């Protein structure tokens, strides 16, 4: 029993192994998603940002309907793209967050740390949630950039997919 308990404890996932914090605030017909990427950004990403190249972090939000006997049905997919670019002449970081192509928020940062914090803690995204009878799941991931393994095989650098049950609206 002790051994089984130890094995079970070892098999349980950690608190936030994915590197992405997801906070959900439901409201009627809407769901406010607050994201925070805790994973350290890749070095080439931060160097490119400091060098003046535009960089982005793409947060992919997918809403699934949990069907008991069938596979989960994908209801909607959203993208929250946070872009940052430093103006080397002024030293100011321009920050823009777009949800599904629409500007959600923008801002400026004076330092690299502020800019990184801004893009890793983007403004909350509000997504529509349909009325349903089955439980809903929100699957979220943050993508920093794309690398290529063995020269040609694309590999996305980002956090793990995080799944959260969508709470009922009050």
């Amino acid at each position: 029993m002790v051994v089984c308990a130890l094995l079970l404890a070892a098999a349980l996932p950690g608190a936030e192994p994915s590197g992405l914090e997801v906070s959900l605030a439901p409201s009627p017909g809407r769901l406010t998603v607050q994201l925070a990427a805790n994973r350290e950004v890749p070095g080439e990403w931060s160097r490119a940002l400091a060098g003046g190249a535009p960089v982005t972090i793409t947060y992919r939000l997918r809403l699934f309907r949990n069907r008991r006997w069938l596979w989960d049905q994908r209801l909607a997919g959203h993208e929250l793209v946070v872009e940052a670019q430093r103006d080397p002449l002024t030293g100011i970081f321009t920050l823009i967050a777009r949800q599904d192509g629409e500007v959600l928020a923008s801002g400026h940062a004076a330092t690299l740390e502020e800019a990184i914090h801004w893009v890793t803690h983007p403004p909350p995204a509000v997504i529509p949630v349909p009325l349903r009878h089955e439980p809903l799941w929100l699957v979220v991931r943050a993508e920093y950039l794309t690398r290529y393994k063995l020269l040609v095989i694309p590999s996305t650098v980002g956090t793990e997919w995080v799944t959260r049950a969508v709470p009922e609206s009050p």
Partner: protein
Amino acid sequence: MRPWRRAWERYRRQTRFLVIVYLLLMVLAGGAFWLFARLRNLPPEELTNRLLVFLLWWFDLTLIAILLFMLLRNLTKLGLERYHGVFGSRFRAKLVISYLVLIFGPTLLVFLLSASLLSHAAASWFSAPVEEMATQSTALATGLRLEAEARARRAATLLAWEVARAGEGRAARIAALERLHRLRGHQLTGLWRDGAVIIELQDPRAPELRRLTPLDATALSSSGQRSERAGGTLVVRAWEVLPDGTAVVVGEALSPELFAAQSRLAAAGAAWEQLKLQRTAMTATMVLGFGGFALVVVFAAVWLGLHLSRRFTAPLLALVASTERAAGGETLEEVPLPADDEVGLLVESFNAMVRRLKEKEAALRSAVHRLDTVLHAVRTGVLTVDAQRTSAEGNPAAAALLGMPELASRAVPLDELAAAGNARLVEALRTASGPVRGSITVEAGKVARALELAILPLGDAGEPQGWVVALEDLTQLLRAQRQAAWSEVARRIAHQIKNPLTPIRLAAERIARHAERGGEDFASVASQGCSAIVEHVQAMQEMVDSFALYARLPPVSLRPTNLGQLVRQLVALYDGLRPNLHFRLDDALGEEEVLVDPEQLRQALANLLDNAAEASPAGGEVLVSLQRSGGEVKLVVADRGTGIGSDDPDLLFQPFYSTKGRGSGIGLAVVQRIVADHGGTVRLLPREGGGVEAVVTLPAQG
């Protein structure tokens, strides 16, 4: 319509092809929609990169899929053909595998080398000097700004100290600011308090300073600086806050030329950083593009290899298939494959060979037909027996001779042939180890037939491929010969009897005539007549005895005999029989023993010596020689007489035939019979220099 067009039209109308095209288009449309939906929010550069990588990936994957499908299909087909033993599959499999090894090996090697080179080339593009230059350009742009900010900050500090010394009155401070602005030549100076401008002095030669963003109160709560783009250049403002909250602001604008250069440097640095982010994508794009090109080459080479393997092997396989069909019993046909290379020459040579074979086959068929006709027409029976001597078939004459009509239509087992009264023939067939000639009697259909037999092996005598038997019906011939012989015997007996009958009749008539006359000489006449009659009757008695001797010759009794000694004794007996006649022996046989019947052979040799002695003139010599020649013993009796005296020497061996005008004429006949019973031959040959040589050849069975 051209052939390829017809083939395409025929292929295009196949339902399977239409379904495949439909499914392919559907997949392509779905993929395009998915791709568009996925990439619509990307910036143009990223979209281009991703789209290019995506298209290259799909291009490569499609080629790989097609290539694998083609290879698997052909290899599976070849494997199945080889498993089922389809002719030519082994050759094609070897050819295709050789092609694949020759194609994939070098191409894979070249691809790996090229990918490595591309990767290293991409790394070399982002070399350290370029990286340093790009970094330093960005640092330079930043440094210029920082220096301008520091300069503005120092000026703001100095002006704040001067303004503070002027007192706390607004007018005094404004006056001091105006004085310092003129004195120090700043482009922008001003006093701010609580987020509002008290006074701002600008250099009229710097129009870019006219529409600056107002400084907010929060920023002015403590000393600081700000850089911003304005009027096509960079404007730097720094402020120093006095104890009473008044902020002294100093600003300057960089020259547009310097700012433009600075912008270009900064843009180059930013572009460089962005390019570095896309380095792996660029490498992947190049490798994928080159991989796609290599795949196209491999695809074309594989397709060409498969096509050429079919093209090369098709004429050869057609040739071999034709020969296989011919080996299976079908007619050898020409191969109608047009080709103008060496394979074409081979096909043409094969077709020429087929034509010649057909001509020869026609000639052979004609010859066989003629032979068949002849065999059907001749009265000689011909049998063919298989190599195992189990069955035989023959022509109609053989079927009639052997009393088995089915012989002419099918192969009849020899046992069946033997059961039909041909046991002796079958026995002769089964025991023959080489060519055999002889006579046998068969009783086919309860009719006795005398057949002359000739058995010949087909092919190699040591291992014959079969046997041919020729049968000649001698029944009628023997009957006729027998009748002729009896007629000849009757004639000769009549002749032999008639010769003494005439003198007997004359003697009897003379006695009778003298008896009628009753003369004194009757007794003398009667005595002479009776003597003559008795003499002739005695001659007739001797003649009859010789007949009996010829008829009663017993079977030979062979036993080892010293033939030389036998001949020496006989020659010694005859030597001195007549004066002036010598018998000489030339014995080369010595003491060797031969398997003969000594009594009968002594009788035959005595007859030959009698004839030689009678034929030899006075003072002559009879030479008897004895020698061995191979497997035979040759005995020659040579005289110097008048010669053979007949055109046909064989007649001399017939009974009752004589050229001497006396004797029974049975001596040579007895000699021939005895020699023949020993398995030998006897011939009369004219002797060189005159005379006759009687040559007796006996098998030398020791």
